[in-house]
């Protein structure tokens, strides 16, 4: 084999492994979200993760990938439907030395993660039909547009926006959609009292939450380090290092922040701290030095705990704190390179300029901020229009009776935990015991 062929083989294998890791994050989301919600909705919450990825797979294959990476203008790609390759169609990904099928598979994982994040805002009260419709539209008309702006040759990429693996493209987008959804859906029954004070609706299985968090942590090595899409120079190892350092700092910062703020070393807060840190380092992982990765992870892990408490006090019921963990942390991470992007790493990646801390001036900071605001505004407006239209036509929310009964039985006809919830099985187990 020639060195070129060996390089192709190794890069392809690495991208395939990374794609599997990123797609495997769906399992992490299933466990994290199911563990953080109630037993009566567990089957629904976990199961819809498969539905979501299936919808994303088809919609991204048919249209989403072309809009994201296909040749077109500064706002959207207009070529490459159904992965149809022509001359220069996917030039925006020409830097990656792997077959198109692998590029697609890897990028599909990202689109799937963004959609999974959005579902956090729908949890425990949205109609199943909404998942079909919004999932499809999100994968075609929302995610790919921002993806194109930053990674597909669009206006933000041209400005030199640094978002290595998608703090804004993947996480902020999903989080903004989640926020719009949670506001339009309204709080779950019982979340707030008449005087607007919030009640706790604890997740049914903290162990699931922790395992889900850990699966995501591991999956993030595919997400960030895999975004090098090459093994030749070993840079993926560096990206993995900054990713891991940030996650560790986020865990510790979050549990300490929870202890300081509310007096409890809260486990779900620690898991969310890890995720917030990972979200934040996603943009910065290839641009910042290890010390800065620790700072970014710690700030994101700590700050998002505060925001999750704050939004709850303000009457927003975000069941798994998707907006704080992915939105606030996504913005923190994206803007962080405006401060911490080091000249050495900017030269290696060839994207944007050095940050404020290294004497790079305000240029990169402004670019990053514009990117965050632009992406957030687009996603907010389009998500609102779609969800508002759905609300006024088919309705977003199940009936109160369905919500109280739980989505497992009302939307799917069987419980995730029949022995605990289904009267037939509960009585049966009592009889057996007697």
């Amino acid at each position, binding site marked *: 084999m020639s060195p070129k062929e060996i390089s192709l083989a190794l890069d392809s294998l690495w991208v395939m492994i990374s794609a599997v890791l990123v797609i495997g994050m769906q399992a992490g989301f299933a466990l994290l979200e199911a563990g953080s919600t109630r037993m009566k909705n567990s089957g629904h919450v976990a199961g819809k993760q498969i539905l979501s990825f299936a919808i994303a797979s088809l919609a991204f294959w048919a249209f989403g990938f072309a809009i994201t990476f296909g040749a077109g203008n500064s706002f959207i790609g207009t070529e490459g439907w159904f992965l149809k390759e022509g001359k220069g169609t996917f030039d925006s990904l020409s830097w990656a030395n792997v077959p198109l099928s692998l590029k697609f598979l890897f990028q599909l994982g990202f689109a799937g993660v963004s959609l999974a994040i959005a579902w956090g805002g729908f949890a425990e009260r949205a109609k199943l039909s909404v998942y079909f419709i919004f999932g499809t539209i999100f994968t075609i008309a929302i995610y790919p547009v921002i993806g194109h702006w930053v990674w597909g040759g669009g206006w933000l990429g041209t400005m030199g926006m640094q978002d290595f693996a998608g703090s804004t493209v993947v996480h902020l987008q999903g989080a903004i959609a989640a926020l719009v959804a949670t506001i339009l859906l309204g709080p779950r029954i019982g979340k707030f009292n008449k005087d607007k*004070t*919030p*009640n706790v609706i604890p997740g049914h299985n903290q162990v699931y939450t922790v395992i889900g968090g850990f699966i995501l942590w591991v999956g993030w090595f595919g997400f960030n380090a895999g975004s090098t899409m090459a093994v030749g120079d070993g840079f993926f190892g560096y990206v993995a290092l900054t990713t891991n350092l940030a996650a560790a700092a986020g865990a510790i910062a979050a549990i300490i922040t929870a*202890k*300081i*703020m*509310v*007096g409890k070393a809260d486990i779900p807060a620690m898991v969310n701290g890890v995720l917030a840190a990972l979200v934040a380092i996603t943009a910065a992982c290839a641009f910042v030095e290890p010390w800065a990765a620790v700072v970014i992870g710690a700030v994101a892990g700590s700050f998002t705990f505060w925001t999750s408490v704050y939004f709850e*006090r303000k009457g927003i019921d975000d069941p798994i704190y998707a907006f704080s963990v992915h939105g606030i942390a996504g913005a923190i991470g994206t803007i962080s390179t405006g401060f911490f992007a080091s000249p050495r790493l900017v030269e290696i990646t060839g994207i944007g300029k050095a940050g404020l801390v290294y004497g790079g001036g305000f240029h990169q900071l402004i670019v990053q901020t514009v990117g965050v605001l632009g992406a957030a505004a687009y996603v907010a407006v389009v998500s609102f229009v779609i969800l508002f239209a759905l609300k006024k036509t088919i309705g977003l929310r199940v009936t109160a009776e369905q919500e109280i009964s739980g989505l497992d039985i009302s939307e799917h006809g069987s419980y995730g935990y029949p022995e605990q919830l289904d009267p037939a099985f509960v009585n049966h187990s009592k009889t057996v015991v007697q």
Partner: protein
Amino acid sequence: MESLYELIQQIDQAKTVNELNVYHRELAYRLRNVIERDEIASLSHALSDVHDTLVKKAVMLAEGETIQAAVGTPPEKWCWYVMGSMGRGEPTVWTDQDNGILFECPPEQEEECYAFIRHLAKVGTSFLHDIGYPYCTGNVMATNRRWSQSVRAWEQQMAMYIDHHFPDDIRFLLIAMDMRPIYGASELVQDCKKSLVGQMSRHPLLLKRMGEHVIFPRVPLGWFGNFHIERWGRYSGCLHLKHSGYVQLVNSLKFLSCVGNISAMTTWERLEHIRDQSLLPASLAQKVHEAFLTCVYFRLKYSLESADRDYVPLHVLDPHERALLKKAMKVAQMLQRTVMRQVRGWRDE
């Protein structure tokens, strides 16, 4: 203050439960006009005296009714006692019931005497409820046999608690340490309490367990001096005043009283003896005294203003009050740490 003592005189003249209920309700109105941080010690004593008089009067009425009902045999000696904040002499206006009865009679008459006591307890707690003292949710009341029995049975039970010293046993012992006679043969309660504290003070392992018990709940103050307010529920955004220094001070002082074999009745007296025996450094004892006054002041003040007596929204406290309360809470933390250091040095055998 004088208006409270006038009230005591009026209560003394009362002849019915309804009258007592009226006087009880009047308490809050009278206190509202006189409550001040600097006067809190004497105010708290006066308030305690009013409650004592009300309870005493209710028990006298219950005794009359029990005798009239001719249920069982009146014991040779019996005493109605109170526990909790009333027992410690630092009640709020709307305190609930924590009470019991001790009696003494020949063993062969015990069942008959108990019938009398049971009836007395039922009528007495019911009268107190009608006057405005809610039933205790933890069932620390004379109607519960745990707290109403012969001296002999009571001593056996306490010996068992001391011997086993499981968490619930320690909780019961801490409750029993607050008993204070209100009506009847007060020497029964005084002697029992003296003997109880004496036994406890001679049991090192119990003291160690007790020390470990009283370092919880932690004072709800963060590392940067931030208040830990309730996050969820109808009291979201509120401070739990009872847990914001008060209960930590009270329980730590009870622990130190056991160490020093101090069978004093009230927290004020306990602290005095603790200081006399040098169980705490003089400077810390002084700080604890001030902190305790602050905690009593806040509990009393906000119990007048709110039906949800234990919770106060943080935003209601002005900056001066926050600073005052925080200072007291920090002292409670120091006291808990002192206890922790003390028990950490004791061997677990």
